[in-house]
């Protein structure tokens, strides 16, 4: 190879690599979070829901984060708190995104038609508009008030708050796709309307809601902690961050900062981690998706 060719090859190699490295780096904060959540039982030295020592002990070698007002190990509780937050966030993000896409597609496809389906579509859209008008915490308070506080009810409450965004995003995208000429061309080619919807509209409308998923993840953590903080979240002794912070404030006022501050730090870190990934992911996702598709062979053939 000539000198120029070698240089050019080296340059192009350098340009391609950072893309993949940067892409993986974007996922690291969230992966750390999820790892801590998954391995909590292995990481935490004590049972997070039982008193294990004297109350209000300062951070030490045996209790890295100290103990709280009833003698529970703050470190173990904080680590398990990660588990709880991540579990909720994943479940809510999945249900809200998938459910939101389905509802958004339905609304987008039906809202302009005249029959009962059109009516249903418009009604759902309007209900969604109203639910958006309710502040998340208020909605959480009311739902927990009526159904009580449990994993299920909190999941329902938070999902109800956060499903509206994917619904709206998908609906708008569906409306955009409906205006595209390939739907008309499909009609010209004799394609049945239902098939058109499933094969053309849905796949092309998924994007915005999928990109929104990390945001739902982050918002779920925030809402869960907020509800726990004001006392309508998961019942004690569940090691949930929000509740830990609020019950730690009285100790804070006496100078014993550790029961409240450590969970607060964890909330801060996880929220920042998710925000970082959410911001970096859209730029690096194409790189990752590209790599993936090269690993999985393309099974597409050219015939219908």
């Amino acid at each position: 190879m000539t000198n120029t060719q070698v240089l050019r090859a080296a340059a192009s190699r350098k340009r391609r690599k950072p893309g993949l490295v940067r892409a993986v780096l974007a996922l690291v904060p969230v992966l750390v979070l999820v790892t801590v959540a998954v391995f909590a039982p292995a990481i935490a030295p004590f049972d997070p829901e039982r008193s294990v020592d004297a109350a209000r002990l300062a951070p030490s070698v045996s209790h890295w984060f100290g103990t709280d007002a009833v003698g529970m190990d703050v470190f173990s509780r904080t680590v398990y708190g990660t588990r709880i937050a991540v579990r909720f966030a994943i479940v809510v993000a999945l249900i809200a995104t998938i459910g939101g896409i389905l509802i958004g597609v339905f609304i987008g496809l039906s809202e302009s038609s005249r029959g009962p389906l059109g009516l249903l579509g418009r009604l759902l859209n309007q209900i969604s508009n109203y639910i958006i008008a309710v502040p998340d915490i208020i909605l959480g308070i009311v739902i927990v008030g009526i159904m009580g506080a449990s994993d299920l009810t909190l999941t329902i409450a938070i999902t109800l708050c956060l499903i509206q965004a994917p619904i709206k995003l998908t609906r708008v995208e569906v409306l955009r796709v409906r205006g595209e000429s390939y739907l008309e061309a499909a009609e010209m080619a004799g394609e049945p309307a239902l098939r058109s919807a499933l094969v053309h509209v849905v796949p092309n409308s998924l994007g915005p809601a999928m990109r929104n998923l990390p945001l739902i993840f982050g918002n779920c953590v925030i809402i869960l902690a907020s509800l726990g903080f004001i006392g309508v979240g998961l019942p004690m002794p569940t090691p949930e961050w929000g509740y830990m912070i609020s019950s730690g404030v009285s100790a804070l006022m006496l100078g014993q900062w550790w029961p409240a501050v450590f969970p607060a730090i964890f909330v801060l870190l996880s929220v920042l981690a998710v925000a970082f990934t959410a911001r970096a992911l859209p730029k690096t996702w194409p790189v990752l998706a590209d790599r993936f598709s090269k690993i999985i062979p393309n099974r597409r053939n050219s015939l219908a």
Partner: protein
Amino acid sequence: MNWWRGNRWWLVRILRLPLDVFVFATIAFFLIRLLPGDPVVVSLASRNEPVTPESVAALEAQMGLDGSIWSQLLRFWGGMFQGDFGASLVSGAPVTQEVFSRLPSTVELILLGLGAAFVATIVLGFLYTRFSNRALRKSIQVYSSFATTVPVFVIAVFALLLLYVKLGWLPAPLGRVSSGVLPVVTGFPLLDEAITGNWRMLGETLVRYIMPVLAMMLAYTPNLLTQYLGGLDREIAQTTTRFQVASGAKRGWIFFSVFRRSLSSVVVVFGLFFGSLIGGAVTIENLFGFGGIGQLGVRSVESIDFPTLQGFLIIVVAFCLIAMLVVDLVNMWLDPRRRPGVAAEGN
């Protein structure tokens, strides 16, 4: 006829409001009754009362859950038109009274927090636009990228740690005043303290507001700042700006024109922001021991006070809708392009 055409934009919006509230209330009515779980049974159980047909019926009547859903709806509508949402199971007082007696203090907190964030945005926005120092701009950008990521109460806890525990500059989070009962005239604590000449309380409340308002400012400024920066990019590229530059207007003048126009994109989101502001205010109230609607909400959850929960939801949302309407109207007044229907008439 022309008067109608020219003023239609705000008239229609104002007329729509009661309709929106009504429809929302009805939808909320059904939605909370459709939620699985029986508040009556749960309430009896939590109070360790026996679940007998009599006790169930009695509690149902108290909660307004007796009779068919349609009779409930009719009673609900009837009550709503008279401004009656039933009575609280905890205090016996009318729900509307319970909510309205607390709402202004929460609003005061929200307005102060929003105001502080807006001022911070103006200051940072001004610095950003005026000085082209790269380090300054980059750090402002980074700060704005934290938009809505950190919950207010978390920031407040850190502020408490620093300003109260470690430095002792500010008092403990134990309510708006150290002793005594807040005067009640309008419901807005600061205002009432000033009106009744209670200077000690006024001073104390102002000092105790420092940390919460600071926390709200730190939490909400990034969001507003993002709006400002986005607006700035847009306004600089606008033909208006280019024309100003081309016509040789003074730098300072152009700068202020762009600044002002970019700020309007911040004001636009105030309405959307209101929901998260209320949520934040509720948590802050809880942390600092301030009385407000958050306190009412939590109390109602603990005692499964169904009528209060229902009324609380509807009144708070109605209030949000009003706030959003006000913001919308102000925006539409400031910028005629935002008025619906006006653009079409220009064709």
